[in-house]
């Protein structure tokens, strides 16, 4: 195949949403109406006081602006880049009804958080040590958020993550043109600055008899329960679902998350890539896969989905991006087999039409990316003895407490897979829950809830 030049790939992976200049930020901030009980604040899952942080940009109080953001959302810099703002804050902006152009809240949030993180000034203050400790499993958005709020209350927090870098999917699962690893890693460093201990490259082994720690970097869950006053489980989801096809383990069949993770190294040539790539699935992860396959230089990229265009779970703006990138779409096609050539290499994806015709057809391709959702980590959950629902989601009460009163949970493993910002809010609630259970006190975290206003009906 005609490979793309390194420089061309670099250009293809340039940030899709570049930072605002100072002039742009001030102009945009001044455009904000400063709504009272603003809809953007309600729409944000972490309820960042959006008008407040924007007005602080307008007044030139950038550190204060960043504090408003991070106070409600410890991964505010990540969210500024990867949040589906079109359906959250910006989707709710009244400017959208007034002049069809909402305030660029996401980019303003990035402007303020970039400033703060580059300023070297401390955003948070750790609380005076209260003598209690919490283990956090998983350094993704839920874990980082939970750890931050706990550390600010004086808890000794240790985060365990099996990956070498902190951040979870923020670090390993975001499309490279949206955000580089540096941002989420820096955000995790902010958490470390609060005194939170990160034990990376460390796997937590659940209590099943055949799973004793076998290596140096393994710790048993039972030890955590003994060593810490509470445990927060923010382990996300598991591996990509199987297609259940013969030959699914062929070279050239890859999980979308693996594909995306390998791109994060920015070692473009090391990423496996076919000439014609078929991506199975139509969610936001599938979009990240097709757009990045295209940007890496695949000649044809096809998104294969068993239902219709109307049924895709990807956000509309993500779908538009894929179309803009020249991706082709195959609707109502269910993969039923993988065909190979004489050398055993993938030559086509065999599909059946789901429009009732049951017509069989082949999509010639030499690479298949699976983006059909992730499994639940039910094995681990079962082993540590906490209850989950029929869909494999951890069951929690309003304190984010699991069936084991010492174990709390949040993020994808609880909601079944949502946005980073949703995980951040659950981490916040879990910190409040842990604090209440361990101290009997209610903590008032910014954006944990929106204070009701007497005369305004609740949303």
């Amino acid at each position: 195949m005609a490979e793309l030049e390194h420089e061309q790939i670099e250009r293809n992976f340039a940030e899709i949403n570049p930072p605002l200049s100072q002039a742009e930020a001030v102009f945009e901030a001044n455009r904000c109406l400063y709504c009272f009980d603003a809809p953007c604040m309600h729409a944000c899952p972490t309820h960042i006081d959006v008008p407040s942080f924007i007005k602080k940009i307008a007044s030139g109080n950038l550190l204060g602006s960043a504090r408003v953001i991070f106070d409600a959302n410890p991964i505010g810099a990540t969210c500024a880049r990867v949040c589906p703002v079109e359906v959250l804050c910006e989707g709710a902006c009244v400017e959208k009804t007034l002049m069809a152009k909402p305030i660029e809240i996401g980019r303003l949030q990035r402007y303020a958080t970039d400033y703060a993180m580059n300023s070297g000034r401390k955003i948070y203050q750790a609380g005076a040590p209260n003598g209690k400790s919490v283990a956090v499993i998983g350094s993704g958005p839920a874990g980082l958020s939970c750890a931050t709020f706990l550390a600010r209350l004086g808890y000794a927090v240790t985060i365990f993550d099996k990956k070498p870098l902190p951040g979870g999917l923020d670090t390993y699962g975001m499309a490279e043109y949206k955000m580089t690893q540096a941002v989420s890693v820096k955000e995790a460093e902010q958490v470390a600055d609060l005194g939170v201990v990160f034990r990376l490259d460390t796997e937590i082994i659940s209590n099943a008899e055949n799973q004793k720690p076998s290596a140096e970097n393994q710790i048993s869950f039972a030890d955590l329960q003994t060593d810490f006053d509470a445990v927060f489980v923010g382990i996300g989801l598991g591996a990509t679902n199987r297609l259940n096809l013969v030959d699914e383990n062929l070279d050239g069949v890859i999980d979308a998350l693996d594909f995306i993770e390998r791109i994060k190294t920015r070692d473009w040539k090391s990423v496996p890539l076919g000439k014609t790539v078929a991506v199975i699935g139509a969610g936001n992860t599938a979009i990240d896969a097709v757009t990045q396959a295209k940007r890496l230089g695949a000649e044809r990229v096809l998104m294969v989905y068993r239902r219709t265009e109307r049924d895709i779970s990807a956000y509309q703006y993500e779908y538009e991006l894929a179309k803009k990138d020249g991706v082709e779409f195959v609707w109502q096609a269910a993969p039923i087999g993988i065909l190979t050539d004489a050398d055993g290499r993938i030559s086509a994806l065999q599909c059946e039409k789901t429009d009732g015709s049951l017509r069989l057809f082949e999509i010639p391709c030499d690479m298949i990316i699976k983006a059909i959702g992730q499994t639940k980590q039910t094995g681990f959950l079962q082993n540590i003895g906490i209850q989950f629902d029929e869909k494999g989601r951890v069951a929690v009460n309003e304190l984010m407490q699991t069936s084991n009163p010492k174990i709390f949970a949040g993020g994808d493993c609880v909601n079944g897979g949502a946005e980073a910002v949703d995980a951040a809010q659950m981490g916040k609630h879990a910190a409040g829950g842990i604090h209440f259970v361990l101290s009997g006190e209610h903590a008032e975290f910014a954006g944990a809830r929106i204070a009701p206003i007497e005369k305004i009906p609740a949303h």
Partner: protein
Amino acid sequence: MADLSVNFAGIKSPNPFWLASAPPTNMGSMVERAFDAGWGGAVWKTLGEPIVNVSSRLAALDNGATRMIGLNNIELITDRPLEVNLREMYECKKKYPHHAVIASLMVESKREAWHEIVKRTQDTGCDGFELNFGCPHGMSERGMGAAMGQVPEYTCMVTEWVKEVSNLPVIVKLTPNVTNILPPGLAAMRGGADAVSLIITINSVMGVDIDTMIPYPNVNGMAAHGGYCGTAVKPIALNMVSELARHDEFNIPISGIGGINNWRDAVEFLLLGAGNVQVCTAVMHYGYRIVEDMIDGLNNYLDEKGFASVNDIVGRSVNRVTDWGNLDLNYKVVARVNPENCIKCNLCYVACEDGAHQCFDFDANKFPVVDEHECVGCNLCALVCPSPGAISMVRLDDGSKPMNWREYSKNI
């Protein structure tokens, strides 16, 4: 097409838009370019004994992302030799015989000095004089400018001196740095002025650089108060213009100045009694070209309203300005929200709650609703509302006869 030409105190110009005496009229080449752009007249940068200026000289007030809603300056009168200005004025007038060229003058408070400059200047063929009794900075410390305008007796006296030798209409430019504009205005009239112009700039300290802690504009670490002008001063100017225009004894033309950016601003001045208008700051911001829309917009406005000439609207709103005591206490308006246009920003709610009379509630769909029994009709909600048509002020007419405060106080 309406007739835009005006005859202001005997000075004719093709339209009512003059450039005020300021940097845009610093020299002949500038005034000529301005005339080419469409300006009907120009008041030359004030002539007098040439001075030496400081650097820097200007500072501005921004509002959010909007630049320069106000400007202040500590520049003095012309720094060019008198004979150069006079020669250029002569040439300019010869080239543009139908445009108004006005000589702004300021010299020390001596009869001979005023006589001399008037005599020398009127030989240029200029159309009239404007006596600068207004500059609040620099020159006032030397007994000129506002130092004249703030003392009605001086205003009258110097006007008389000028009238003794002038063959041309004399406009007295008034300073707003007084508590009441009537005494200096009437004094100018008593001194024989053919017209007044107002306002010139307002005393101001524009701001402080909060990093260096040096106020603006910085002149080697120090600052001095300067003259404030631009959009932000328009309401002050409109008040002073209307105060003179509605005064029984005041009967000479007024040239309106202060924060005029476009034809709408100009129309407001004309309605409140100005016979023409002068513009400076907007030109300093955007250039001479802004006059094109001033002319075009005024023309369309007059056509739309059915007026044949700009003179037809001069003073039309003067009798709509009165003393507070004459206002009708029985007139009642209330705010009404139109949900169709409401964007639910709740600015009306918070403004009323914290800045007015707590009249807002919300309906089940979260649209703000006004409690008309509580609403005093203050307008605040409608003023803060960003969405056109979402809040209207509606009259509640209970049939009561008008009653003003004077009548009301007689009855109690």
